[in-house]
């Protein structure tokens, strides 16, 4: 792709989108050079800001005509480099598609444009007594389109499931530039479940321009407790006991000593002093059910060695309990100049063993690891701390981070539970899947994107059938942008 090709493309797009919607100024382009994983930076050749699905489709068609790759971007909070631009491609940003088109509590549905912020859907539904269940910690800024692409989860996904369980319809611009509807307000549309295949495809099967989401009736009762334990072994055992008792909490979250220390320093959440681990357990549903199970949960926590148990008396106290957890990523910035946010999954019962292994590796290599995670579903978020100013530390941290993923794979888990493969974990895919498995996934991709123009180089390590350009992995300088992290 030459500069003239791009300027031809820009010239073609301007009359369609409007001058202000097509950015080619180098300085302005720079603001889009990375997503939430700031170690990867690429300045896009062009940025397009469509305001409608038709404009988005026209942009994709222009890319197809010019043979130029395109990358979708929502709010740019992704933590795997999924929205990393292509140096010779167009970044299609949905930030000007932010209308909530309909809120229909009687159908338990809302229809929104892709740039709509996750939390805004719940806000719009709240007056009717409904909410949008998937709640990533980034929900104040991340977009629904990004959630769809990543199949994002959140603390409450233990009970309610992930984005894929809450999206019933999509309008999609295919990599050919066609507008297609998949699913709708009703369930079980006839034919292949392309909607299900699209969710979690990280922008490699097209761009979604309208999303029909399921709204969930707000629960009658919500009860939250915080329990302090001597260490993660006890907290892990309590988690397993709660699940084994047949209780399905809305959320079970765990933080270890280092994560508690960081959260305390950052937001003074007042977690039990000296605790080696805390569990946050939240139950919701009909009051009678919640009360019965809450008693069980308190008892099981005590039986497994909980010292202090704090029960939120009201919404303000609940918010305080959650504050420490929700700010954990950013808080780690207070105790370490740099850190890697890892995202791996293990079977829940392997928790104590895996945490011990992580502690061993951390001690051996002299790299500190803070653990914050969705204990209920075994989704770990180890935060690997380092100081980029000290030569060699970044590489060491990267090694520890990789070793943690190896442990996850060895326990039959996954290399990512919610942050996606993106650019970051392309190299890990062959450790989790065989060449044939990956080849089979490529069949789907080739059906949607025979030219390999939609977010090339992401998710899959090698182009198998459609010949896309493989992603280069660059040096590791993991550093979350302070400005972004502070939002939470």
């Amino acid at each position, binding site marked *: 792709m030459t500069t003239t090709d791009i300027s031809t493309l820009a010239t073609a797009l301007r009359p369609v989108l409007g001058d202000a919607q097509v950015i080619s100024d180098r300085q302005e382009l720079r603001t889009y050079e990375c997503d939430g994983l700031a170690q990867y930076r690429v300045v896009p050749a062009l940025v397009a800001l469509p305001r409608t699905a038709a404009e988005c489709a026209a942009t994709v068609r222009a890319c197809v005509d010019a043979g130029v790759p395109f990358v979708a971007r929502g709010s740019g909070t992704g933590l795997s480099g999924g929205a990393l631009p292509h140096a010779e491609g167009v970044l299609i940003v949905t930030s000007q598609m932010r209308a909530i088109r309909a809120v229909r509590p009687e159908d338990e549905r809302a229809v929104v444009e892709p740039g709509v912020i996750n939390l805004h859907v719940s806000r719009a539904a709240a007056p009717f007594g409904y909410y949008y269940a998937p709640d990533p910690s980034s929900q104040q800024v991340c977009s629904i389109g990004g959630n769809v692409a990543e199949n994002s*989860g959140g603390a409450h996904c233990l009970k309610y499931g992930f984005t894929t369980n809450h999206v019933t319809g999509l309008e999609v611009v295919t990599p050919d530039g066609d507008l297609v509807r998949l699913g709708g307000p009703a*369930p*079980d549309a006839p034919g292949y479940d392309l909607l299900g295949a699209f969710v979690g495809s990280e922008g490699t099967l097209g761009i979604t321009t309208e999303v029909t989401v399921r709204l969930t009736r707000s629960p009658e009762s919500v009860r939250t407790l915080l329990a302090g334990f001597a260490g993660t072994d006890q907290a892990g055992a309590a988690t397993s006991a709660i699940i084994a008792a047949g209780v399905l909490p809305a959320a079970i979250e765990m933080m270890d000593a280092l994560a508690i220390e960081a959260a305390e320093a950052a937001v003074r959440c007042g977690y039990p002093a000296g605790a080696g681990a805390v569990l946050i357990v939240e139950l919701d549903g009909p009051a009678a059910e919640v009360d019965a199970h809450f008693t069980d949960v308190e008892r099981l926590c005590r039986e497994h060695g909980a010292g202090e148990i704090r029960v939120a008396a009201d919404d303000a106290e609940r918010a305080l309990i959650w504050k420490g957890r929700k700010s954990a990523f950013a808080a780690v910035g207070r105790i370490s100049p740099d850190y890697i946010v890892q995202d791996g999954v293990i079977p*829940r019962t392997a928790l104590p063993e895996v945490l011990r292994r992580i502690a061993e590796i951390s001690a051996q290599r002299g790299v500190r690891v803070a653990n914050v995670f969705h204990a209920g579903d*075994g989704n770990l978020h180890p935060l690997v701390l380092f100081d980029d100013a000290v030569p060699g530390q970044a590489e060491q941290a990267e090694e520890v981070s990789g070793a943690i993923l190896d442990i996850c794979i060895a326990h039959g888990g*996954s290399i990512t539970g919610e942050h996606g*493969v993106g650019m970051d974990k392309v190299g890990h895919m062959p450790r989790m899947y065989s060449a044939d498995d990956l080849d089979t996934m490529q069949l789907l991709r080739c059906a949607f994107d025979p030219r390999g123009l939609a977010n090339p180089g992401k998710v899959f390590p090698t182009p198998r059938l459609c010949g896309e350009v493989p992603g280069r992995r660059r040096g590791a300088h993991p550093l979350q942008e302070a400005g972004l992290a502070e939002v939470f």
Partner: protein
Amino acid sequence: MPDDVLADLAAATDGDAVRPAGDGDAVAGVAPRYVAAPGSTEEAAALLRVAAARNLAVVVRGAGTKQDWGGPPRRLDLLLQTRRLTGVVEHAAGDLIVVVRAGTPVAELQAKLAPAGQQLALDTPLPPGAAATVGGVVATNTSGPRRMRYGTVRDLLIGITVVRPDGVLARAGGKVVKNVAGYDLGKLFTGAYGTLGLVTECAFRLHPLPTARAFLSCRSSDAAEAGSRVAAVLASQLAPSALEVDAAPGGGTETAVLLEGTARGVRERATAARALLGGATVTEQPPPWWSSYPWRSGDVGLKLTAALSGVPRLLAAAADAARRHRAPLTVRGSAGTGVLYGALPAATAPEAVAAIVTELRAETAAVGGHVVVLTAPLAVGERVDRWGPVEGLDLMRRVKAQFDPEARFAPGRFVGGI
């Protein structure tokens, strides 16, 4: 004359797994030439490599209970049975997951899970004695009343092993509940009616068995009254596991609610639900029609979907169509999720079925849904468009062309002639 193909197929297996087809092997009236029942995923892959080399058209059969769902295959050489691909590979009770081979009867799986106080939270509407397999349930995307609380196959399936039409073995997903690495091919194979390949193993998320349950039923005189009851339950915070309606021709509409939970919780919620419904019978056992399709073998079976608020309209439209066409159309299903099933007797004139389907399609389209003819006598099948309009059909054809370029797997049995 020796049959080379049969010899090749036999050589790919332990020998006993393959036989020439006989009476009773036909699929929707189309007879295969060979029948194979592989004993392992590897053997299945070897068989399918032979099928690919020999250009054999293949239909997969589980228990065979739903072979009349979907049209007759355009051609058929090899019937591949999963009856020997059975058993639980792994049940990790503490992790609430199970890995099971596709030929395992769902009932058998549930019996294995129950002692651990667990279940695959999937209803499989079944006539007595039918033994639907895990693979068949996944391939037809079967669901029942409790989908309202637990979702359907797509929500519970966390990993899948398949053999592609070219004989290549592939996995997607895994055995942890949370996993976003790579495409979710399980979703693609769910409801694909065996047109993309053979499912050999499935990993599912499990749920604890509830300690108590209560069914509440009440009768409404018309669709509007039933509709307002349904709406009242939906708007409540009672978190029911299922909300069903049953509308027999000429009769009223029965509404039934399932509550699951702790003993005390269910008791208190049942009291509240009873008040909400304006009176109801509370029982521990389901009403007789619960979780069963309204048709009998050989009848016409329809699936009608709608946005939730469109359910009363659909019930009224069905009653109206039944009256005008003098056809005893029974409608039943999940008012709480917008999925209903309709039945017409086998003897209904094909023209009447076609007219009713067309009219109902206009109604479902207005409320964002579809009408699919799940099962029908051959004469009816020839007369009606089984699937109706399908969004994204072009993309679906492209998916099929990638997985099965020679169109050898269940050709013609799926949407748009796929």
